[in-house]
C-alpha cells in the first residue's frame, strides 16, 4: 500500500538501483550459504544419531537441539565479543548455520529413525549398493522432512535481523532497517520489504512443490520396523564422537565460554539492576498482550482447521501460516505505515507493538492449539452433546478441557518468542520503552559487550523455557484413550518440539 503511494516512477527507480541488486544477491548468498552449512553440520550428525551404535546418542540428540534455545543474535553477540574481528557475510553464514542446523538435524534424525527398514533391504536385495540405496531409496523418503527443515532454516535466515546487523552484512533486513531509521527513506524501505516478502514466498512455494511431489505413502499394512543400527569400528566411533563433540563445542561451547567471560567483566562495569528489571517488565507486558491477541485470533482458526477441511478453512490457515515467511522487520515497517496513515494515535504504542507480535507469531499459536484440538476425538464432543450439553458447553467441558495444555503451550510460546523479537520492537516500541532484546541490542551496537552480557544471559534463560516446556509437555504420555499407546521415539518427540518451538 505504502509502496503504491510513492508512485510507479520512484518504485521503479528504487528497484533498479544498484544497491537493490546488491542487497538481493547478498541475501541469496547468505541463504544458500546457510543451507549448505546446515547440510554439512546436520547430515553426518543425523546419520550418526539415527543409524549407528555411537554411544551417548540421547545426550547428543539434546546438544543437537539446544542451539535452538539460543537466539541467533545472542549467538552472534557471543562470537563477536570473543573475536571482535569477525564481520561480513562469511561470519554471518557461519553463525547462522550453527544457529539453524537443528531445524534440519532433528527432523532428519527422526525420519531416518522412523522410516521402514523394509524398503532399504529390498533395494539391497535388488542389487543396489549402500550409496545407491541411500540415493535412490533413503533420500527420497526423508526428503519431505529435510525440505521442511531446510525451509525453516532458510526463512529464519532471510528474516534474521540481529545477526546480520551485528556482522554488518547488507542483507534485506539490515538495509530496510537502516533506510527506515537513518533517512526515513520510506519508499525504498517499502520496496525492499516487498521484495523480501516475495523472496520468502518463493521459498515457501518451492518447498511446498518439492514436498508435494515427494509425498510418500507406505504401501501395504503391517508394523513398520526401524532400520538396524550400524555397528561402528572403534576408529569410526572415535571419529564420530569427535565430530559430535566438535559440533557441540562450536555451537554451544564457544558461546557459553564467551558469555561467561563477558559476565565476569560486567561485574566490574556498572550494572543497573533497575534498568534490567524495567527491561524484563517491558518484555513481559508487551509479549503478554501480544500472546493474548494471538490466542484470540488463533483459536477460531485452530478449531476450524482441526475439525473441518474445506477449501476455505485451508485458505484461512494457509494465510495465517504465511506469517512464518513474514520477517519482523517487514511487519514492523508495515505497522508503522499503517498506524501513521490510519490511526496516528496508535503509532508507537504498546498495543501496536503487541499486535505486531500477534501477527508475527500467530502460526505458532495456531499450530500448537490445532494439533492438540485435533488429538481430541470428535466422538467425545458429540457424545457430550448426546448427553445433554449444548455445543459451547460441550466444547469447553470436553474438547477445550482436554486440549488446554496445547492451547496454553501455544500462548506461552508466543509470549516467550515475542520477548526475543528485535526489529519489530525497535521500530514500534513507545519512546523510552525497553525490552531485554532492545537493551542487548543497544549495548552490542556500541560494542559494550560486557554490559550486554547480563541481557544476553536473560535472553538465553527465557529462550530455553519453551524448549524445556515443550520437552515436558511432549514427553508426558498423552491421556490414555486419546492417543492410545502410540510409542514416541525420542527423535520424533524432539522433532515435534523443534516444530512447535521452532522458527525464530
Amino acid at each position, binding site marked *: 500500500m505504502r509502496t503504491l503511494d510513492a508512485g510507479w516512477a520512484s518504485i521503479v527507480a528504487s528497484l533498479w538501483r544498484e544497491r537493490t541488486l546488491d542487497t538481493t544477491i547478498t541475501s541469496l548468498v547468505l541463504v544458500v550459504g546457510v543451507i549448505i552449512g546446515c547440510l554439512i553440520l546436520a547430515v553426518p550428525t543425523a546419520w550418526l544419531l539415527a543409524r549407528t551404535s555411537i554411544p551417548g546418542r540421547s545426550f547428543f540428540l539434546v546438544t543437537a537441539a539446544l542451539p535452538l534455545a539460543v537466539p541467533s543474535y545472542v549467538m552472534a553477540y557471543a562470537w563477536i565479543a570473543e573475536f571482535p574481528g569477525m564481520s561480513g557475510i562469511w561470519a554471518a553464514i557461519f553463525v547462522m548455520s550453527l544457529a539453524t542446523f537443528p531445524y534440519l538435524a532433528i527432523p532428519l534424525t527422526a525420519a531416518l529413525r522412523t522410516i521402514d527398514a523394509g524398503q532399504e533391504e529390498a533395494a539391497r536385495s535388488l542389487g543396489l549398493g549402500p550409496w545407491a540405496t541411500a540415493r535412490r531409496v533413503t533420500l527420497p523418503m526423508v526428503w519431505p522432512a529435510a525440505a521442511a527443515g531446510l525451509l525453516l532454516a532458510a526463512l529464519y535466515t532471510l528474516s534474521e535481523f540481529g545477526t546480520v546487523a551485528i556482522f554488518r552484512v547488507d542483507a534485506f533486513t539490515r538495509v530496510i532497517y537502516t533506510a527506515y531509521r537513518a533517512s526515513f527513506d520510506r519508499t525504498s524501505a517499502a520496496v525492499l520489504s516487498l521484495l523480501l516478502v516475495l523472496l520468502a514466498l518463493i521459498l515457501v512455494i518451492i518447498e511446498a512443490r518439492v514436498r508435494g511431489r515427494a509425498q510418500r505413502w507406505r504401501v501395504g499394512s503391517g508394523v513398520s520396523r526401524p532400520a538396524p543400527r550400524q555397528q561402528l569400528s572403534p576408529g569410526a566411533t572415535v571419529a564420530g564422537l569427535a565430530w559430535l563433540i566438535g559440533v557441540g563445542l562450536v555451537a554451544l561451547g564457544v558461546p557459553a565460554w564467551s558469555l561467561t567471560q563477558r559476565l565476569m567483566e560486567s561485574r566490574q562495569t556498572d550494572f543497573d539492576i533497575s534498568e534490567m528489571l524495567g527491561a524484563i517488565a517491558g518484555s513481559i507486558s508487551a509479549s503478554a498482550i501480544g500472546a493474548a491477541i494471538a490466542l484470540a485470533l488463533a483459536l477460531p482458526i485452530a478449531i476450524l482447521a482441526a475439525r473441518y477441511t474445506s477449501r476455505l478453512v485451508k485458505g484461512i490457515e494457509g494465510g495465517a501460516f504465511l506469517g512464518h515467511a513474514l520477517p519482523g522487520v517487514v511487519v514492523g515497517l508495515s505497522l508503522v505505515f499503517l498506524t501513521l496513515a490510519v490511526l496516528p494515535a496508535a503509532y508507537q504504542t504498546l498495543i501496536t507493538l503487541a499486535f505486531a507480535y500477534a501477527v508475527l507469531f500467530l502460526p505458532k499459536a495456531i499450530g500448537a492449539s490445532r494439533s492438540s484440538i485435533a488429538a481430541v476425538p470428535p466422538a*467425545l464432543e458429540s457424545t457430550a452433546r448426546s448427553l445433554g450439553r449444548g455445543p459451547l458447553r460441550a466444547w469447553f467441558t470436553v474438547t477445550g478441557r482436554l486440549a488446554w495444555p496445547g492451547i496454553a503451550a501455544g500462548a506461552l510460546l508466543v509470549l516467550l518468542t515475542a520477548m526475543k523479537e528485535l526489529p519489530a520492537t525497535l521500530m514500534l516500541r513507545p519512546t523510552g520503552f525497553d525490552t531485554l532484546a532492545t537493551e542487548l541490542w543497544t549495548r552490542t551496537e556500541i560494542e559494550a559487550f560486557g554490559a550486554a552480557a547480563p541481557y544476553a544471559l536473560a535472553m538465553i534463560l527465557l529462550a530455553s523455557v519453551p524448549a524445556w516446556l515443550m520437552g515436558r509437555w511432549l514427553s508426558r504420555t498423552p491421556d490414555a*484413550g486419546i492417543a492410545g499407546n502410540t510409542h514416541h521415539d525420542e527423535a520424533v518427540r524432539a522433532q515435534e518440539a523443534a516444530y512447535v518451538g521452532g522458527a525464530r
Partner: protein
Amino acid sequence: MSALTLADVVIGYGGPPVVRGVSLDVIDREFLAILGASGSGKTTLLRAIAGYLRPTSGTITVAGELVAGPHTFVPPEKRRIGVVPQEGALFPHLDVAGNIAFGLSRDKKSARARVEQLLEMVDLQGLGKARPHELSGGQQQRVALARALAPEPSLLLLDEPFSSLDAALRSEVRTQVRTLLREVGTTTILVTHDQEEALSLADRVAVMADGLVQQIGAPWSIYEQPTTLEVARFVGDLVELPVNSVDDSSVQTALGPIQLDRRGANNRRHHTAHPRGAPTRATGPGCRSSSR
C-alpha cells in the same frame, strides 16, 4: 407407539447421497440391528438419528416427536438419545463415576445414587474412582453403556460397540450387554458390520447396502430367506449354483433337483445353500433360496 420412525431419509455430505431414502419403524422396547458393510451408509444414518448431522430430506420422529424434518432440527442434547460410540470414547479427564454422571443433573446427591446404581448394573461396583485407561476394553465399553443409560434415554444407539474388543471378550461382553438391555427395556439400535453379532443379538435385523435398507425382518428370515443375492452373500457363506431349468416346485442344478421355498418370491434364478449343510438335496437343513 413407535420409538423411532424414519420416513424417506436422505443424507449426503455435499456429493451423491450416502443414505438414499430410508424408511424404518422401530417398535418400543425393540432391539434392532442395522447390518451393513463399511460404506453402506449405516453409520451416517446413526449419526443423523443421534442429531450429529442433518438429513438432506425426509423426517425423523423419536417417540412421537419430530426431531428432524424440512423445518425442524432438534440438536443432539435435546433428543434424549443415548449413544455408545465406537471404542467407547470415555472422557479421559474424568474418572468412571464422572463419566457416568456426565449427562446427569447437577444435583450431587441424586446423581451419586444413580451412578452407584448404574455401576452395579454394569457389574463394575467399586470402580467409580478408576480412570478410563485403567480399565480393560470390555470394562470401558460397559462404562460407556452406563454413561449412555444414565439420563434414561428414550432410545439407545450402539455404534459398533464390540468391534474394538478381541474375539473371546467380544461374545462375553455382547451377552452381558444384551441381557442388561433386556432388563432395562430400552429401545436399542445396534449398528454393525458383523453378521453373527446382528443375527444373534437383535429382535429384528435391517440389512443396508448402497444407502438403502435392502431387507428387514427377524434374524431367521434374513438368514433363511434373503430376498436378494446381495443380502444372501452378506449374511453368511454361500454355495451358488447355476440353475439349469426351473419348474413350479423345484430347480435343476448340478447337484440335482432342489425344492423351492414357496414363501419367497417367484421367478428364481439362483438357489443358495450354506456350505455347512453341504446339501445334496434341496430339502436339507440350512438350505436357502433367493430370487431376484
